[in-house]
């Protein structure tokens, strides 16, 4: 049992249920896009471990 000393707030948890529903749609479309990209041989360029500075420099 993890004692959570940060009170999460029950309203926020209910709201997460809504978010979860919305994310079902988002994830559904992301999977389709990923599948299409895969089929066309495009490499997965998403990299969550990239540094913010690197991203900013690329965009500059």
């Amino acid at each position: 049992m993890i004692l959570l000393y940060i009170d999460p707030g029950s309203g926020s948890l209910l709201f997460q249920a809504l978010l979860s529903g919305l994310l079902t749609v988002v994830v559904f479309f992301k999977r389709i896009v990923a599948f299409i990209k895969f089929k066309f041989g495009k490499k997965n360029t998403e990299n969550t471990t990239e540094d913010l500075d690197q991203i900013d420099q690329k965009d500059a």
Partner: protein
Amino acid sequence: MPNLISYRDTAARVVLEEGIYYRYIFDEYKAEYDHLTKSGLLQALTEKGLIIAQQEEEIVQGLDLPKQTQQQLQNQSPNKLYKKLKPHQIPFQSYPFEWSYSQWRKVMYAYLQINQIALGHSMILKDATPYNFYFEEGKAVLFDTSSFSFFKEGDPWMAYRQFCSEMHGPFALMHYNGQRWARLSQSHLRGLPLNFVSKQLPLKSWLNMNCLLHIHLHGKYATNDSENSSIRNSNTTNQTKQKGFSKEKIVSLMKMLQSTVVDWKKPYVFEKHWIDYYQKDIASDKYLEHKESIIKDWLSQLTKQNKLPSILDLGANTGKFSLIASEYAEKVIALEYDDICVDGIDKAIVSSKQKNIFCLRMDLAETTPNMGVLEKEFSSIYTRAKSSLVMGLALIHHLFISNQLSFFKIASILDRFSDKNVIVEFIPITDEKVQFLIKNKQRSYQDYTEEGFTKAFEQFFQIKERIQLDESERILYLLEK
């Protein structure tokens, strides 16, 4: 570092033992800590510089623990200690309400990055507070090692509300309404109520998906009333099981939030009037060269034996002299009043070879005091930034004229910050910048004289050297206590 650190945490406690900070992990956190280390998560985060480096030390149990340590462990039984960690000692800590926009952005990005990496190891951060981060070499680093909890499919994001009210909310306010909103965090240490944030944000924020969902709509649903919130432990996640996220969904959510952080490169900027002040830069090359060479000379004199432990640069502006000083000290702390300038110094640190500079926003006439519970959670800037050398270059005219501080008060401030030496620049009344500042002021500035300046400073310091700068009426002073 303040005395009341991590007092709310039940998994671990930070303790000061003979001048060194340690983190004691308690028995109840054993499973999480073991997974954190054995799964490779801790190593992955350490290698990326996202979490503070640390090593395990031999642990002493029970009554063999030093008395001071036992006292600091308070309610936790000394027999239930699992690990003793010695983290890299934080050289300097600044607080979220002292950060510039780009610093907030780095923390937001790092937080979401850490969570995504953690989710890959079935863990997640149970806290979402910017106070768990500090800056080193211009990078945001998490120092709360015991903030990780397990995440399994279907779990809700327990830190979500805290994320929105302590991180996303303030950051959105800064982005849409200006960097000044960071300062509100100083009077709201536990975050901003979401309905409040929602009301302050402009209409166009409703068109941003992340603001719409996580602030505006969330603010309408979430209750801030803790009496209505009965959830205190993870047993109740059984009830909310269906309301949680799959790993894929929560990672998607983190990515969406992260893309907003990346997109929001700059804050809304109000202050245009200072542009005139900086653009009409009278600084001749000779003046700057001479100033630089004297300061380097003095720094060399002061560091004949060893580098100074710390140099404080007050009113650091672009950070030019902080960068110069950084070669002569273990660390340089740069305080600057203007938010945009702090962003500039932050950029300069990242691109410079010398990375031992810490910058933050500070108004010298409204400094951060001791704050929080029993005024022991957060330290005054005077405690944190006290240094053996304090530099006050192109500063005192701002404090005298804009802040209406007498020379005695200015000298008191520098005296309070300094352990030994001060380098200060006197800018006379005939200087163009001073004339700009006093342009529309009603009062006479007859008391603004070099004589008045030296008289005030001599009450705290001895004047070691006085040098008039080339092609300028400005004068550099080297002072010693």
